[in-house]
């Protein structure tokens, strides 16, 4: 495209916002249908128990109650909650427990009533007789002989063991100056989208048509799975993801309630709504991380890292959700980070425990990988008394090496890691800050500088990389329709929920067609309108959805050029789109109004051979490879040695997500990501006690950070386009999170370095830090 872009690369205000800032957007809970009933689910207070009996009759008699059901009522009527990722042991996962409960929060019964207050009255009347069983919450204990078994049929709590051996790693360990060993625990986290999950289902008996409104990131993939669970044709289910109030991976799933509420709507022949309460969200929506790794690092005195070896223990929880056992794989493959570490070996033991299932949470496997890589750099720096920035420089994959194959078997598309490090250190004024740190130390203060360089994998790519049972691949779809009046409708298969593709896709289309951004409307999240799509997760919206959009736009451009070429009698290759016209590239005065071409396409009064009427193009883009955004974050913190509290003094992030469509939205993604990354380092932790009781069941205990707990971010960027796709974009949804956790962690540990403290468990709560300081001073 020869024309200078007018919208792409500009700070365009979001087109989603007017409805959201006026309270007129429609989330699932805002759906109102005539005759609609409300359902609430009774959940297990036990982590592991046999269900002896459930008495529903008192609940059924509460005035206003329409139905009360338990798991046994649904046998053979609703299928298992699906897991599409491969594993040796995939258990049957009923939508309501049958015979046994396996985690606190598992659904046991459901009450449907005229409103939620009455439904709650009904739940209070249900009597469940449980026989408590011994529970196991520690994945390492769950593997020991004699541990309580969650799923008797497997006779073990092992889900699967995946091994990637490599003899070169053992050789490197033998020849290295030093082998450093330690254990890392990426603790269990809760995604906590501000809008909990919710489902509304409507059955139209005359049409045998089911409509499901669900707060989901994957309307089509969910439809396919729910169709299976309910034994309905996919063409009989219409899924709408309305306004979705955040997902972060938690809504990249298929949940019991999506099938359960649909089943209720079908059998009761009335619309049914279920809105998750926050306690249900914290106990029964997928968690993230909970991964232990025993790490071995082979390194030389000069800081060169020769090999990495990891033995992972990954806590899957009680059942497997959609992708549960697939997540840790990314941690293994990506654990060499931005570094040219030549040899890698790992094995991953996935384990059942009496806890909610883990699954994707912002970053999904890559934050763990980046944490391993960055802890590796720090450990090597500490071991050999080197500057942590220098150790990174020593090991970085050089700019000239791209496309760069890695020890994990991936090929990084493009990058300049050292550039981001240098830029971040310049911004922070590294040498001066180190001097200030030393001066503060003399006053007895504890200032720390944390560095984290990261690379992550996005736009997950050729479909062969995705599980075969997913019924969808790594591709994405898009239809672009130019309407007869010249307005453009984009129907995308991605399903944004805050990412802003209604704006960025409109920017792209407006530039490509030389029209105004206000003439473009982007539609998503409705299976009756948009072609089958994969959805929004893994930073793929623009990375994979964008090229699909470009393909459809390209098809329409070609078609319109052919029509214009016939009308203007100019060869199509000499034409371009410019300011609502199609004009000759060499002579802009020779042009035809775009609207004239559009009318010709629809009016079709002149038949052009090989050109069909209409202006509607659908494309399915299959990426040839993944993209790899990267960057460096640097934080400066001060630790209060008496109370263990951490205060941020600076936070600098230099991120490279390839070409940028909207700098404003990229900033937003990075800032939000950093907040979640810092939250893992310092604040958040899903906590179960030994008996499997959830102790972080409300937002009174689970510490989602507030505005006054986070720093002011200084954002910088570099731009290294991805060669993988036509837009040159890499993805940005998860980058901030991936960089921020090791950065904040390293900063705190750097502050404590002079006390000899090298290893603490996350989150770095004040007490954790205070204890470490006290113990170090005692020693």
């Amino acid at each position, binding site marked *: 495209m020869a024309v200078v872009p007018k919208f792409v690369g500009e700070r365009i205000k979001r087109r989603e916002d007017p409805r*959201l*800032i006026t309270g007129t957007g429609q989330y699932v809970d805002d759906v109102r249908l005539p005759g609609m009933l409300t359902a609430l689910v009774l959940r297990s207070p036990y982590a592991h128990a046999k269900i002896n009996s459930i008495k529903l009759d008192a609940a059924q008699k509460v005035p206003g109650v329409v139905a009360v059901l338990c798991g046994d009522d649904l046998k053979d009527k609703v299928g298992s909650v699906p897991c599409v990722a491969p594993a040796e042991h995939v258990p049957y996962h009923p939508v309501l427990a049958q015979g046994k409960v396996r985690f606190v929060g598992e659904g046991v019964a459901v009450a449907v009533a005229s409103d939620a207050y009455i439904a709650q009255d009904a739940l209070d009347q249900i009597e469940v007789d449980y026989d408590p069983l011994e529970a196991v919450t520690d994945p390492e204990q769950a593997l020991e002989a004699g541990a309580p078994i969650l799923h008797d049929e497997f006779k073990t709590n092992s889900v699967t063991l995946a091994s990637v051996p490599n003899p070169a790693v053992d050789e490197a360990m033998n020849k290295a100056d030093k082998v450093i060993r330690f254990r890392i625990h990426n603790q269990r986290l809760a995604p906590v989208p501000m809008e909990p999950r919710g489902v509304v289902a409507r059955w139209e008996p005359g049409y045998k048509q089911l409509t499901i409104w669900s707060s989901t990131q994957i309307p089509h993939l969910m439809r396919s799975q729910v169709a299976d669970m309910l034994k309905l044709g996919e063409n009989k289910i219409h899924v709408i993801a309305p306004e979705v*109030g955040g997902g972060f991976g938690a809504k990249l799933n298929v949940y019991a309630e999506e099938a359960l509420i649909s089943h209720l709507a079908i059998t009761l022949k009335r619309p049914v709504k279920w809105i998750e309460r926050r306690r249900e969200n914290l106990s029964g929506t997928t968690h993230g991380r909970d991964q232990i790794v025993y790490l071995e690092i082979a390194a030389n005195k000069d800081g060169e890292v020769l090999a990495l070896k990891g033995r992972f223990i990954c806590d899957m929880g009680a059942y497997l959700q959609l992708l549960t056992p697939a997540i840790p794989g990314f941690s293994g493959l990506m654990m060499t980070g931005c570094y040219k570490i030549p040899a890698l070996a790992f094995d991953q033991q996935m384990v059942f425990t009496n806890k909610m299932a883990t699954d994707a949470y912002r970053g999904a496997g890559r934050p763990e990988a980046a944490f391993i890589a960055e802890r590796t750099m720090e450990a090597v720096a500490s071991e050999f008394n080197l500057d942590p920035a220098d150790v990174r420089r020593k090991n970085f994959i050089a700019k000239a090496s791209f496309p760069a194959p890695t020890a994990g078997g991936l090929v990084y598309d493009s990058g300049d890691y050292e550039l981001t490090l240098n830029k971040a250190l310049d911004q922070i004024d590294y040498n001066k800050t180190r001097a200030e740190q030393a001066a503060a130390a003399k006053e007895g203060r504890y200032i720390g500088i944390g560095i984290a360089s990261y690379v992550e994998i996005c736009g997950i790519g050729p479909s062969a990389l995705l599980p075969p049972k997913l019924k969808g691949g790594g591709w994405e779809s898009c239809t672009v329709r130019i309407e007869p009046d010249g307005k453009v409708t984009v129907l995308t298969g991605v399903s944004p929920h805050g990412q802003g593709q209604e704006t960025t896709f409109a920017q792209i289309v407006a530039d490509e067609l030389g029209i105004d951004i206000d003439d473009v409307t982007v539609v998503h999240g409705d299976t009756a309108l948009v072609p089958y799509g994969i959805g929004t997760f893994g930073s793929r919206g623009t990375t994979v959805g964008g090229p699909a959009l470009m393909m459809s736009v390209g098809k329409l451009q070609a078609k319109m050029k052919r029509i214009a070429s016939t009308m203007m009698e100019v060869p199509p290759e000499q034409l371009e789109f410019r300011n609502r016209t199609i004009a000759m590239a060499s002579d802009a005065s020779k042009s035809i109004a775009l609207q004239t071409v559009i009318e010709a396409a629809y009016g079709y009064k002149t038949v052009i051979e090989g050109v069909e009427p209409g202006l509607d193009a659908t494309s399915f883009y299959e990426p040839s490879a993944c993209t790899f955004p990267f960057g460096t974050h640097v934080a400066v913190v001060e630790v209060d040695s008496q109370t263990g509290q951490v205060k941020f003094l600076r936070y600098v992030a230099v991120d490279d997500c390839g070409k940028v469509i909207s700098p404003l939205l990229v900033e937003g993604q990075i800032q939000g990501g950093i907040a979640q990354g810092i939250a893992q380092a310092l604040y958040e932790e899903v906590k179960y006690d030994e008996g499997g009781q959830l102790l972080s069941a409300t937002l009174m205990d689970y510490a989602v950070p507030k505005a006054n707990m986070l720093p002011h971010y200084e954002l910088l960027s570099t731009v290294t386009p991805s060669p993988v796709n036509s837009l040159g974009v890499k993805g940005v949804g998860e980058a901030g999170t991936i960089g921020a956790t090791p950065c904040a962690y390293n900063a705190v540990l750097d502050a404590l370095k002079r006390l000899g403290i090298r290893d603490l468990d996350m989150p770095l709560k004040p007490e954790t830090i205070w204890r470490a300081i006290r113990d170090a001073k005692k020693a």
Partner: protein
Amino acid sequence: MLLNLTINGEQRSDNVDPRMLLVHYIRDIANLTGTHVGCETSICGACTVLINGSAVKSCTILAVQADGTKITTIEGMAEGDRLHPLQEGFWEEHGLQCGYCTPGMIMTAADLLARNSNPTEAEIREALEGNLCRCTGYQHIVKAIQFAAAKMRTSKAA
């Protein structure tokens, strides 16, 4: 029992169950669904509305307790098509992503700006203690509120 109140300038009279929370009254009886529910424990602030000009969490008030009051929800902030400066600020500065916390954020910020027309970044962050956002990392929200504060000061001065 009979409940009389004014909501976004409209007088209403409804028969409500005393146990109904104000947020459910606003959403389900008054049909103003811009006010959201994000937690059960009075922490997240998504349900924030103004009662007689003061920001409150409508999930922790019975509807009957609001008898005789004037309530403002997000739907009552704009005047016709003219957005409230806070709404403008959130739009201009990309102060929202998924939008779920936004109405509550705006209502709390309205109370803050009524007390302090020129808050510092630290004061804004402290004022948002009762509002959680999971998307933005808060920085653009801070900027949005500063934008609105500046605009409101200018229009007051004019």
